[in-house]
């Protein structure tokens, strides 16, 4: 164990953070405004003023395109049968705009394979002249069929013969609501959009952990439970107390702030006063996480507890679809992240926070009240986690006792990727993680999405141990 004070934890100038946010917004804007479907060029069909192309791709996640699948395209007086080629793709030129129905002949699938989303067959695809419309059909072993987002509560605490194992189900969090490519969307663009949205929300949720690490050197393993706290509070506010969603978000954020204050006031400030090392404090956060997780399970059970029921309206913009809810969530995330960046760079409080991050002893010597800064950092950090928790819960369409702890590693990955203690890095890292998580579904089974993000984390550490924006440490 090395004393804390040999570790220099610089908070990067937040200008980078602003630049990153701008870049993320630019990505979103590009996706929404320009309608250039990726992969369209590879097809023989070229859309022009009088022609539209309907491109259908049949793939098996994890093994690639599936050839020889028979499809029928019906609508606007047309009825065309096509078969997918070696690239798993079939392309139908159409001259009339309107809705078409795409039907997959399940009998033509390779033996033993079935549709992963049989409920989406046949599917209706809107076609606009001069554009390409795409549809991706996923096949796989019938048993792999993805449950709807939100997932079933397959984990039931049970047999006491192996305690610890079964008592805490570790089911994965649900699938992002923006990741599923509805009809009329370009899958790649849709996944990039989903990854960016997820990344921004993850950035919001993980920023607090990074601020705490920066100012106190503590890796907070209970941060995931603060995220869950946001989701659960919002759930109670909407479902139990009948508050409107916006008010629920406010209440959840306030609950997070309160929790942050309480945790610091009654646990971590006393520990720091007693001179307990950061490693020991980290283990305290593990105990705290375990206690909180079990408390959530005690109160809410293992079932998902959705904050809102019903599906938000989805808008088709260019090649992608996005729900109004996600747009608002992204807007909130961007505004809050920008506000944090502004606070860190332009205000007295922010400068003091950065000074504490750089060197607590020196900051104290120059008259900064270090403990009061740390108290504020805890409050802000937990509030951010809680707010991020609500938005992530809405986005993932699942609020469960363990959804925060499932995201904990992704948050750690985001922070580490960007460089420990660097807020701008955390945002960049979160965007990378978000994109990797969503885009990996192109090549890997859905249930390995999170694993792929963690693999990326380890690979990046191999090449650039200090993270993307972190700086190498100096010894002595």
């Amino acid at each position: 164990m090395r004393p804390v004070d040999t570790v220099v934890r610089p908070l990067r100038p937040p200008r980078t953070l602003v630049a990153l946010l701008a870049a993320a917004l630019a990505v979103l804007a590009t996706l929404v405004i320009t309608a250039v479907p990726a992969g369209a060029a590879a097809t023989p069909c070229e859309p022009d003023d009088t022609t539209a192309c309907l491109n259908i791709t049949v793939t098996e996640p994890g093994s690639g395109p599936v050839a020889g699948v028979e499809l029928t395209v019906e609508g606007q007086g047309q009825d065309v049968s096509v078969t997918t080629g070696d690239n798993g793709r079939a392309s139908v030129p159409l001259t009339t705009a309107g809705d078409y129905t795409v039907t997959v002949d399940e009998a033509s699938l390779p033996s033993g394979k079935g549709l992963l989303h049989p409920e989406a067959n046949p599917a209706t695809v809107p076609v606009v002249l001069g554009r390409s419309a795409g549809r991706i059909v996923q096949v796989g072993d019938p048993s792999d069929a993805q449950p709807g987002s939100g997932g079933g509560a397959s984990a039931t605490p049970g047999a006491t013969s192996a305690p610890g194992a079964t008592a805490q189900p570790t089911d994965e969090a649900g699938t992002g609501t923006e990741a599923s490519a509805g009809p009329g969307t370009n899958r790649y663009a849709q996944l990039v959009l989903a990854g960016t949205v997820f990344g921004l929300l993850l950035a919001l949720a993980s920023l607090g952990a990074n601020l705490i690490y920066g100012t106190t050197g503590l890796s907070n393993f209970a941060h995931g439970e603060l995220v869950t706290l946001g989701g659960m509070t919002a759930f109670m506010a909407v479902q139990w107390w009948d508050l409107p969603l916006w008010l629920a978000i406010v209440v959840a954020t306030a609950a997070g702030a309160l929790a942050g204050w309480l945790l610091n006031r009654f646990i971590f400030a006393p520990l720091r006063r007693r001179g307990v090392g950061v490693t020991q404090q980290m283990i305290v956060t593990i105990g705290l996480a375990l206690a909180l997780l079990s408390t959530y399970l005690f109160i809410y059970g293992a079932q998902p507890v959705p904050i809102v029921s019903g599906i938000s309206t989805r808008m088709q913009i260019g090649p992608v679809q996005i729900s109004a809810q996600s747009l608002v969530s992204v807007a909130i995330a961007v505004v809050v992240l920008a506000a944090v960046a502004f606070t860190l760079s332009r205000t007295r409080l922010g400068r003091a926070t950065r000074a504490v991050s750089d060197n607590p002893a020196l900051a104290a010597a120059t008259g900064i009240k270090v403990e009061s800064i740390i108290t504020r950092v805890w409050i802000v950090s937990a509030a951010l986690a809680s707010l991020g928790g609500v938005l992530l819960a809405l986005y993932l369409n699942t609020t469960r006792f363990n959804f925060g702890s499932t995201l904990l590693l992704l948050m750690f990955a985001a922070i580490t990727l960007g460089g420990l203690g660097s807020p701008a890095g955390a945002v960049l890292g979160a965007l990378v993680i978000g994109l990797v998580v969503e885009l990996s579904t192109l090549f890997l089974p859905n249930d390995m999405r999170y694993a792929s993000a963690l693999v990326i984390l380890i690979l990046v550490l191999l090449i650039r141990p200090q993270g993307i924006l972190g700086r190498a440490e100096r010894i002595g």
Partner: protein
Amino acid sequence: MDLGQLFTNVLNEMTGPTAIAYALAAIGLNIHFGLTGLINMGQAGFMLLGAYGFAITTIEGGPLWLAFLVAVAAAVVFALLLGLPTLKLRGDYLAIVTIAAAEIVRMIGRSTALTELTGGSEGLTGNSFKHTFQDASPFPDDRWTLGPLTLATNTSNSWWLRIVGWAVVALACLFVWRLIRSPWGRVLKGIREDEDAVRALGKNVYSYKLQALVLGGVFGALGGIVFVLASSVQADSLGRPVTFNTWTILLLGGAATVLGPVLGSLLFWGALIFVRGLLRGVVPDGSLTVQQIEQVGWVLVGITLMLLIVFRPQGILGDKKELAINAR
């Protein structure tokens, strides 16, 4: 409330395969953390790899010794993969990489992509890989009673498994005892205190940290084997909570002591079963479900872990004098 039954249950759990498995995992973690100061947050990953290595080798028709060897080899390779890139970096990185890697192992294990090998999230049933171990037993198939405990001689949670398990624990303790008091252990302790100082004395710190990581991981794999020999291999049963429990056990017993991990495991499982049994007897019928009583047990574990760190960080067997110095 039947107190006799409660104490029988507690005794059964304290001497059972779960306590053995956790004791072995904690002995491994003690080499990592207690001796070397490495923060391994992925001990469950080592256990899971050991379990998969053992079960899959057996299912593929390998003999018992080969299954053990494969389990150990899997842990060694895993430790090298994790250690080579991260042990030159600051301690936090190892913590994050190990926890991430253990999760990767679990996610791959439960993934549909490898169902044929790992059984996906359903896992591998015990009957498919327990036979080689049970066949090695010298006992006849029977049920024997010793004091309040009546168990099968050979199948699953058996006398045979307990005898072998505790023998392995005893050997492991002997091994650690010898190492802690050797110059090798001295170098590790030096690294725990200040690795730059040890480097300045001409020791290859990196190599020692790697050795410690591998060795502790192997004990984790052995624990994983014992764990699944009593039940089945299921990725989710060896997830993050298992690592956290192992930490609690190590700190409860006392890090850097020889018998601390064993004592910690006995007390942890004994206390957990005791508290649950007590709650079941005390709480009026219908007010709490069985699951909720379990949750209360886990809440108490979490709180115990926090209180331990605050009030007795050296654990039960730790040296108070060492602690006074540690406080800075």
